């Protein structure tokens, strides 16, 4: 069980015209782990996320996802909303909340998106619809509690501060009841004390909710504190893979990414 793979990425290559964003990338993600992807800007980290979630379609290679049901499915060629329904949730590098909706509504949309559409049900509001709606409401409140936004549930999402928006995004993603959560630079633009809170939150997501985490982050302190394993991308290729200690000591990684002064890990 521990070693069951959630994502098995085999030799994917993603090109945009002449630009090769991902070059023969392979990656394995196990259920229950916190895995980080690091690498210089433009290395292809976000592109990898987009490939895993169905936003981009790599031209070569295979991505296998073990769905909630336990079935293995191939992600490539699948639309983003389908991938989501298989238990993959994500946040975005630049936060993308629904600003005109309240915090609560944002999460609720996540909570109910996987139910069938059922126009009639939505209009007539039979007992099943109402029951489903109550469930979504409870989940939404629960999640807002979980990320510490309960008191701001009825504020417009656009009025939230930057840090709160990131939390909201996490809550909204969790509302889809994912098995794996992909976080794209969740700590960018937050100050050190907020980063600490965020570290706690992410760990809690894994420990209490049992959601595996795939993390992109440039803040080494946060990454090293959280990640159990790391992949390092550079120019679209994986240049290293291993535990934080191994990565910290890896010459290629230091040269390409961390820089000489980085061993202290502060930033």
């Amino acid at each position, binding site marked *: 069980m521990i070693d069951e793979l959630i994502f098995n990425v085999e030799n994917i290559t993603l090109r945009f015209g002449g630009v090769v964003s991902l070059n023969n990338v392979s990656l394995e993600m196990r259920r229950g782990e916190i895995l980080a992807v690091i690498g210089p800007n433009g290395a292809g980290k976000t592109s990898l996320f987009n490939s895993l979630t169905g936003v981009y379609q790599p031209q070569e290679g295979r991505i296998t996802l073990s769905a909630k049901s336990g079935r293995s499915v191939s992600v490539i060629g699948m639309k*983003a*909303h389908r991938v989501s329904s298989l238990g993959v949730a994500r946040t975005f590098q630049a936060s*993308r909340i629904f600003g005109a*909706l309240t915090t609560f509504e944002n999460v609720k*949309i996540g909570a*109910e998106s996987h139910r069938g559409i059922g126009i009639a049900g939505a209009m007539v509001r039979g007992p099943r619809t109402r029951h489903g709606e109550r469930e979504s409401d409870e989940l939404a409140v629960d999640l807002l509690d979980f990320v510490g936004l309960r008191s701001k549930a009825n504020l417009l999402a656009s009025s939230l501060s930057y840090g709160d928006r990131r939390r909201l995004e996490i809550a909204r993603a969790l509302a889809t009841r994912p098995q794996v959560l992909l976080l794209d630079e969740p700590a960018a633009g937050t100050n050190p004390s907020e980063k600490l809170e965020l570290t706690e939150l992410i760990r809690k997501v894994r420990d209490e909710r049992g959601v595996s985490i795939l993390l992109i982050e440039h803040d080494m302190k946060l990454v090293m504190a959280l990640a159990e394993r790391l992949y390092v991308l550079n120019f679209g290729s994986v240049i290293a893979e291993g535990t934080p200690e191994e990565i910290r000591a890896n010459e290629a990684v230091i040269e390409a990414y961390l820089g000489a002064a980085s061993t202290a890990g502060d930033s």
Partner: protein
Amino acid sequence: MPRWLKHKALGRFFSLALAMAVVELVTGPPGSNETPTAGFSGSFGEKVSFFGLFPVPRIVQFLAFTVIIYFLISLWRSYGDRLRDGVRSLTERPRAVANKGSVRWGVAAALVVIGALLPRFVTDPFWQTAMVEQIAVYVLLALGLNVVVGFAGLLDLGFVAFYAVGAYATAWVTGALPLPPLFGVHLNPFFAIPIAIFLAMLAGVLLGTPTLRLRGDYLAIVTLGFGEIIFLFVDNLNGITGGSAGSGQVPHFSVDVGPLKYVWGLAPVPYYYLTLAFVILFVVAFSLLEHSRVGRSWTAIREDEVAAESLGINPLKYKVMAFSIGAASAGFAGVVTAAQTNFVNPSVFTIYFSINILVLVIFGGMGSIAGAVVGAVVIQTVSMYLIHTPPAGYQPQDLYIYLGALLIIMMIFRPSGLVPSKRRQREIGLAESGQGHMDEVLTGDVP
């Protein structure tokens, strides 16, 4: 620009004079192909009675108005704020009350009662007829388009197509078209209602599925194209639709079950009640939808399609759904028109018509069901009023000059429409303070 014009007060006076000159021109006599200058010279030379007192050349009237209005504007600039604050503080409480849910329901119920009693008070047969074909039908169309444009944020410029589908479906199943009805059975238009609504919704799915992948203005032009294509087919497929002559054989509604016999004849009131019933039905259905999961999903897609998709919402499916649901009320409107006028003919289903409906929706307040209804009722009533009882001094053929001006002024002073939707208003508020974006139309494809 000359320096003196840069002086604010002078510049303002100059703009005002220009505006007044346009007013003189619009209200003045017309020119013609023979003497195109007659309109201009008449607009300033012709004598008019000034405030009913004595005749003066219009140029004098023009100058007098300019000065008077300039003076009034100056007054407003110095005291207006106080006045506005005063008015606001007066309306604050009533507005807060009006926003309460129970009050809203009360208002809705009152409106239904008023709607039901209206034919008792509006006895003028013109208005009784117009209430069906020119107001209620437009309300239905505005309601449907509001789902598409307001809820789902899709700019549809070919909405008239669904109205046409409804009307022609009615003609078809009642046996009025050259195309024989299914199984050769000539149905009563009553049975056409579900069929027409179904066919309109089907048309929504068929037109929507290939096109709704497109964004913003690309969608607008493609829907416009589809509207035009449907028009051309209807106009030219003589053997199926009767071509440009259409068909004058569509029967009236009738009921004939056992002892109950009733034929909707020429009198408009029965049609009015039937249509009103459906208006209420659609209003209820659409507002339930708006506040359901479906409505929230539409909002999410409108706000950020990529994010919505990442949450498992299939944008295409919801967009097609909006298209198809919006088409339902338009399809029904088509049934009413065909059955009441006994007549279908392509000349109604033009692109101009689509644009008019869009105007109603946005004028009323995009995304707001009350707005769609109010917009349609107000604009249609005003134009019908002007067509029916042209006020003194007004030249009926100038109707669209005034309507055009009204649209501009309205959008300047109340861009979110007469009865803006709350959700939409928030979005507009965000856009006003520089955050976020309003519609795909504005953001296009730029990430």
